[in-house]
């Protein structure tokens, strides 16, 4: 447990000290909110949620890429793969929640007649999905440029797809749109439950995939045998 917490703490410390990154993390969702502010409030909420998702997954992507060279030596220092990816994910989730709080307050003060609990749940789902998504891309593509382009593609497709199409349900952040509909348009509870279920399944799938990728990359190699110390 101590190892998990230590990795999470160091991930947070590292990200929080990147002031420029923090500023941009906040700027991205804010920009998304402001651009859509004059239109229907649902549009600005959905854009805000996508902005948070994008910001957190980008932070996760870069944190994963930056740690790539360090992780093998931490493995030798006694960490197991799950300490490293779970610890990092915990740190990113904490950062995502911290980034979401001011935007939740923004919706409370700047928009009326919303189900605010729904907004909070949608933000939680965004953060839950975004951290493993960024880590997954970072683990799959070692070069930051390639990872960034793939993430950009995923988010762009998410924005452009018709949300009612079946293809949209395959996108990682479909859940936030469903829950936002429940929160903004006061639709039936099915939207909320579908959204939460989608987020849970996507998060679990990505977590398992991240675990697999880290497990393979940081595995104990078969040529290395450990003899007892005499």
């Amino acid at each position, binding site marked *: 447990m*101590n*190892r998990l917490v*230590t*990795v999470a703490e*160091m991930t947070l*410390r*590292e*990200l929080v*000290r*990147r002031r420029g990154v923090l500023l941009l993390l906040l700027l991205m969702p804010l920009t998304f909110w402001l651009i859509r502010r004059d239109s229907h409030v649902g549009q600005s909420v959905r854009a805000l949620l996508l902005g948070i998702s994008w910001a957190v997954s980008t932070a996760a992507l870069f944190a994963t890429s*930056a*740690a790539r*060279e*360090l992780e*093998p*030596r*931490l493995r*030798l*220092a*006694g*960490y197991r793969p799950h300490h490293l990816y779970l610890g990092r994910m915990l740190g990113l989730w904490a950062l995502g929640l911290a980034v979401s709080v001011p935007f939740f307050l923004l919706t409370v003060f700047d928009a009326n007649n919303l189900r605010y609990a729904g907004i909070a749940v949608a933000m939680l789902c965004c953060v839950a999905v975004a951290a493993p998504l960024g880590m997954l891309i970072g683990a799959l593509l070692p070069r930051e440029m390639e990872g960034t382009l793939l993430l950009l593609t995923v988010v762009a497709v998410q924005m452009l797809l018709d949300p009612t199409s079946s293809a949209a349900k395959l996108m990682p952040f479909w859940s936030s749109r469903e829950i936002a509909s429940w929160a903004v348009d006061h639709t039936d509870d099915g939207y909320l439950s579908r959204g939460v279920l989608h987020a849970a399944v996507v998060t679990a799938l990505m977590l398992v995939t991240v675990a697999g990728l880290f497990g393979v990359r940081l595995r*104990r*190699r*078969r*040529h*290395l*045998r*450990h*003899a*007892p*110390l*005499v």
Partner: protein
Amino acid sequence: MNDDEWLRAFGAELHQRRVAVDAARHVIAEAATHLREGGGDPWLVFGPPQAYAAAIVESIGTAPGPRPGPVRLHATGITKRYGRRTVLRDATLTVRAGQIAAVIGANGCGKSTFLRICAGLISPDAGEVTVAGRLGYCPQQGGTIDFLLPDEHFVLVGAGQGMARGPARRAGRAAARQLGWDAESTVLARHLSGGTRQKLNLTMSTLAAPDVLLLDEPYQGFDQGSYVNLWDQLARLRDEGRAIVVVTHLLNQLDRVDTVLDLTPAQQGGRR
């Protein structure tokens, strides 16, 4: 180089050459007294520290080195190919407790690859490595985190071995002091100079007291004093019974190691 620096370098040379601790202390005290009372530049009075230490060793001899202990690392038949290019062919190395092994060779001959295979970071196409005890590894670059303090690096590495924060910080600072670096500063790793950053890198690898220490050109960016401290530290670790493998291209240091593996293609294999 002032008197103190000269004496420090001289002391490190004596230590490297395994002059008995009491005898070395006595010789250094005599040299210090001579300089204090007689004055003069130590380079003119005694000459270079290395040469004077060599003369002392000839005169008083060295303490018998500790007998090499049991085998700590045994790499045999290591072959590695990248595509059609074979970078390592049947490389073999055995290092015992209380020994320093140097891995040498031309650029691109697979020194770092060999070390990474020994550390279990990459797989060879053939061969196997047996390690007894805990492994420590210091990469050539990229082993530190830009936005963390040195203490936080120690805490992070220490936690891997189940060390509490306080002891991890203390152990890291003590290891850093052996390299002539005060690690108590609140400077982020990205603001450290190249040499100091490499000291942090090295300190991280020795923090958990590994039985086998693998170092990939650990002296990059070191000044002369730091370089002497490094070899002093390595000699100390060797005397404590660690098995150390150093990738190096500085051939003048090879007289201080116990085993050499030359990976230059024309001279494949190990020699002693």
